[in-house]
C-alpha cells in the first residue's frame, strides 16, 4: 500500500475548481511522504479530461470510464472507485470536499472499514503519518484527527485550504479502465439539475455587501441593517438561516449553497462565521464584522472587528457615515 490518489471532480467535462486544490494537496503530501501522487477522473467520455491531467506532475492518471458514470449516482461512483482503489492500493485517497463527495465518499470509505476525514483544512505529518486538521463546532475549535490501521485512509479537502495555483506541472501516464458496472447496481434515478429561478440579484457584481446573520433575531429588525446598506450604496445579503426563515429571498444568500462573492468590502453583521458561510465570502478584499460574541469565528478572518451589540452599533454607524458624507 503506497502513494496518494486524488479523485478529481467534473461536471459534464468541466472541472470543479476545488479538484485542483485537492490535487495540489495530494502532490504536496505525496512529496512529504516520499511517495508518488496519482489522480483519477470518473465519467463517460472523459478522454480529454484525462489528457489534461496527464500534463500535471503525477505518477498515473486513471480514466475510470463507464457509460453508467455519465450521470453521477452514489451507487455507481462508490462501486467504480472501490474497484480502482482495490486495484491500485493507495495509502491515502483525497477528494475535494464538494456536495457530490459528501454524497458518496463516506459510502466508499465504509467499504474499506475506514472513516473519511471530511472537510480537512490542513494535513500535517507526524511520525510519517498524516494528521488531519478539521474544524469543530462550526469553526469555534480545531481538532486533529488521526486515522490508525493499515489504510487506505480517506480525506476530503475544504474549499480554499490549498491553492489551485500550487499544482505542479509535469506528466503522468494515462491508464483507462472500465469498472463494468451493470444498471442493476444503481438504485437512485437522478433527474436533470435545475435552478429554481433566474437570479434577479447578482451579488457577485456588488462592490459593497452588507450581510446579516442570526444575530438580527427577527425579520422586523432587518430595516436597521437595510438602512446601513443604503447609506453605503451596497447590496443586502444574508447567511443561510435568514433565507431559510424566508426573511430575505434565497437569491441573497452567500455561502456554499448560495452565491460566492468577492466584493471590495464585506460587512458581516450578526454572522458567527460558520464555514459554509465563510467559503462564500472569504475572498472579499476587506472583511468587517460586527458581532456581540468576541469568540465568533467570523473574527478569525475579519480585517476589522467590532465586538458589540448590532442594535446599538449599526444605527450609530449609519449616523456617523451620514456625517462623513455631508
Amino acid at each position, binding site marked *: 500500500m503506497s502513494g496518494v490518489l486524488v479523485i478529481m471532480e467534473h461536471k459534464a467535462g468541466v472541472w470543479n475548481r476545488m479538484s485542483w486544490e485537492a490535487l495540489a494537496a495530494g502532490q504536496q503530501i505525496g512529496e512529504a511522504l516520499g511517495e508518488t501522487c496519482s489522480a483519477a477522473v470518473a465519467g463517460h467520455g472523459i478522454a480529454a479530461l484525462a489528457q489534461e491531467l496527464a500534463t500535471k506532475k503525477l505518477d498515473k492518471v486513471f480514466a475510470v470510464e463507464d457509460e453508467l458514470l455519465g450521470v453521477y449516482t452514489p451507487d455507481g461512483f462508490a462501486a467504480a472507485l472501490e474497484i480502482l482503489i482495490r486495484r491500485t492500493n493507495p495509502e491515502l485517497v483525497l477528494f475535494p470536499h464538494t456536495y457530490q463527495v459528501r454524497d458518496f465518499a*463516506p*459510502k466508499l470509505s465504509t467499504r474499506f472499514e475506514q472513516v473519511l476525514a471530511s472537510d480537512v483544512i490542513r494535513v500535517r505529518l507526524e511520525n510519517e503519518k498524516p494528521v488531519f486538521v478539521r474544524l469543530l463546532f462550526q469553526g469555534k475549535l480545531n481538532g486533529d484527527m488521526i486515522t490508525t490501521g493499515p489504510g487506505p485512509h480517506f480525506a476530503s479537502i475544504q474549499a480554499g485550504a490549498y491553492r489551485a495555483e500550487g499544482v505542479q506541472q509535469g506528466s503522468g501516464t494515462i491508464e483507462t479502465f472500465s469498472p463494468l458496472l451493470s444498471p442493476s447496481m444503481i438504485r437512485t434515478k437522478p*433527474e436533470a439539475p*435545475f435552478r429554481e429561478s433566474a437570479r434577479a440579484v447578482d451579488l457577485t457584481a456588488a462592490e459593497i455587501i452588507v450581510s446579516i446573520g442570526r444575530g438580527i433575531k427577527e425579520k422586523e429588525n432587518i430595516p436597521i441593517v437595510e438602512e446601513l446598506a443604503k447609506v453605503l450604496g451596497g447590496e443586502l445579503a444574508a447567511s443561510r438561516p435568514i433565507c431559510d426563515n424566508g426573511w430575505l429571498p434565497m437569491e441573497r444568500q452567500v455561502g456554499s449553497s448560495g452565491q460566492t462573492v468577492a466584493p471590495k468590502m464585506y460587512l458581516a453583521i450578526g454572522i458567527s462565521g460558520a464555514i459554509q458561510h465563510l467559503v462564500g465570502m472569504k475572498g472579499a478584499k*476587506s472583511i468587517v464584522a460586527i458581532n456581540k460574541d468576541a469568540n465568533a469565528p467570523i473574527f478569525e478572518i475579519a480585517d476589522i472587528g*467590532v465586538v458589540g451589540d448590532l442594535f446599538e452599533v449599526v444605527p450609530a454607524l449609519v449616523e456617523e457615515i451620514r456625517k462623513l458624507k455631508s
Partner: protein
Amino acid sequence: MKIIVAIKQVPARDSILKPATDAKWISDSDLNFEINEPDAFALEEALQLKEKHGGEVVALCLGPARAQQTIREALAKGADRALHIEEENLVGLDTLGAARLLAKAIEPEQADLVLTGLQSDDLGYGQTGVVVAELLGYPHSTIIMQVEKKDGSIRVKRELEDGWFQFIEMPLPAVLTIQSGINRLRYATLMGIKKARTKEIKRLTASGLGVEGAATALIGQVYVPQKSKQTQILQGPAREVAAKLAEKLKFEVRVI
C-alpha cells in the same frame, strides 16, 4: 409509513467552548445541550410525512443519559416512541462505530425511511447518515430539501452547489440526510409535553446490540484555532466604536 429519525444532542449554539484539560474533547460539564439543528428539521419532516401518509415516527438517539431531555422534546413534538442507545463515552466512538450502533438499532425496526440531519454542529463530519445507509444496504441521498412519497418509492429534491437542485427517485427503504430550512419547525404543545411523559423510551446498549471493535479514527487533540489574520478589534461604547469604524471605512477601506 414507518420513519426513524436519528437525532443527536449537541452543546447549545451560543455555548462558550473550551478544550478539556486533556484536550481530547471540550470541557462540557457546565454546558447546556439541545437537539442538533439539522436533526430538528429531519424530525419535523418525519412528523409532516406521518401527518400526510399515516404511520409511525420513531426517534433514535445515541448519547449519554443527559440526551434523554432531547429525546423527551422529540416525543413532545410528536414522535410516537424512542430508542435511546445509552453511551456515556461518545468521544471513544468514531463515525463508523456510531453508525454501526445506529444501524443495529434500526435494522429490526424494518422502517420505510430513515431521516437524519445532514451534519452535526459539534463534529461536523456530515457522513453518519450515508454510512448508516451503506451498513444497512439501503439507497440514500444527501442534503435534501423536499420529500415526496410515491408508491413504494420516494422522490426527493437534493441541493447542489451554487443554487442548483436535482430531483432523485429511489426505492424504499432509504436513508435521507435533511438540510436545515426544508420546513418550518413546530413548537411542542402543552398537550404534547404531557403526552410525552407516557411515551416509551427503549434503552439499548452497545453490548446488547452486539457492536464492538476499536475506533480507527479519533480526535487526538482539540484546540483554539490560531489566528491567521491581524484583526483590528474595536470595542467600547457603541457611539465611539461607530465613529471609529466610520473613519476606517472612509480612510482605510475607502468605501465612503
